[in-house]
């Protein structure tokens, strides 16, 4: 299956900490203070299910995902989208230790949910698009770079406990 996403691939060894510039820290915190969690989370997750329909494989219990309108209006989709964005919030609050912050979530996604980690990148791309739409012109190239770097670290950490 060809790679579908362009989120940057990060190789962070467990002994290498990710370094954030002041601009990156400020930008990431600023983004999360400005976006509406109950709008962005559901919108990004719904978009992922529409744009990459194979991701629906994990949500057989969610009821009607038959078309874009059904996905967007599905209350379980909204709820899960909100859950995801609150999960990201934990990384924002622990920028210097995202890896350990996500150890349990990584195990959960691997051992219990059996999610192919490539899917994390697809969701990350949808988050980028939705945040871009929310912030408009303020989502400059530099802000995009910081946000995508943040998402890449999250994605990498979520994939770490897979064996």
């Amino acid at each position, binding site marked *: 299956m060809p790679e579908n996403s362009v989120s940057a691939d990060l190789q962070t060894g467990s002994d290498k900490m990710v370094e954030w510039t002041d601009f990156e820290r400020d930008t990431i915190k600023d983004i999360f203070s400005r976006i509406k969690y109950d709008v962005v989370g559901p919108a990004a997750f719904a*978009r992922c299910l529409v744009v990459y329909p194979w991701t629906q494989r994990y949500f057989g219990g969610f009821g009607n995902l038959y078309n874009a309108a059904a996905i967007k209006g599905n209350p379980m989709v909204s709820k899960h989208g909100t859950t995801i964005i609150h999960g990201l919030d934990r990384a924002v609050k622990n920028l210097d230790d995202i890896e350990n912050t996500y150890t349990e979530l990584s195990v959960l996604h691997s051992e219990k949910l059996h999610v192919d980690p490539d899917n994390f990148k697809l969701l990350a791309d949808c988050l980028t698009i939705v945040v871009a*739409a929310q912030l408009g012109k303020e*989502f400059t190239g530099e802000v995009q770079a910081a946000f995508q770097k943040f998402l890449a670290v999250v994605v990498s950490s979520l994939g770490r406990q897979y064996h």
Partner: protein
Amino acid sequence: MTTLTAKDKQTVKAFWAKVSGKSEDIGASAVARMLVVYPQTKTYFSHWQDQSPNSPAARKHGKTVMMGVGDAVTKIDDLKEGLKELSQLHAFTLRVDPANFKILSHNILVVMAVMFPTDFTPEVHVSLDKFLAAVSLALAEKYR
């Protein structure tokens, strides 16, 4: 993965009709983002005196790219044939690694979200993503 349905083609054409008036801005912004967010792409532009993302050369390149995209929309029923010459250009002269087509496509999508937040719905997003993937494939056709 890259077969465009009738609905995809209709969606792409309708969206393009709405946004093509801003194609220069779209192109300039997409190329600028690409150079900033994926600095390795700058390696293709070492011949530019000014490599900054908003330089006249970068803007001009954005315009060129979007003219190609607009042309591809008119040839949406047979991209392989329609983009034959552009593919030869990319294969033998430019030799851009095809991984970069995905990068630029991603940034075009981001710009669409920034500039047309209400029109760039998930339905439009999926059709446009498929279209850009099909264009990328057609551009890589002559590579080997």
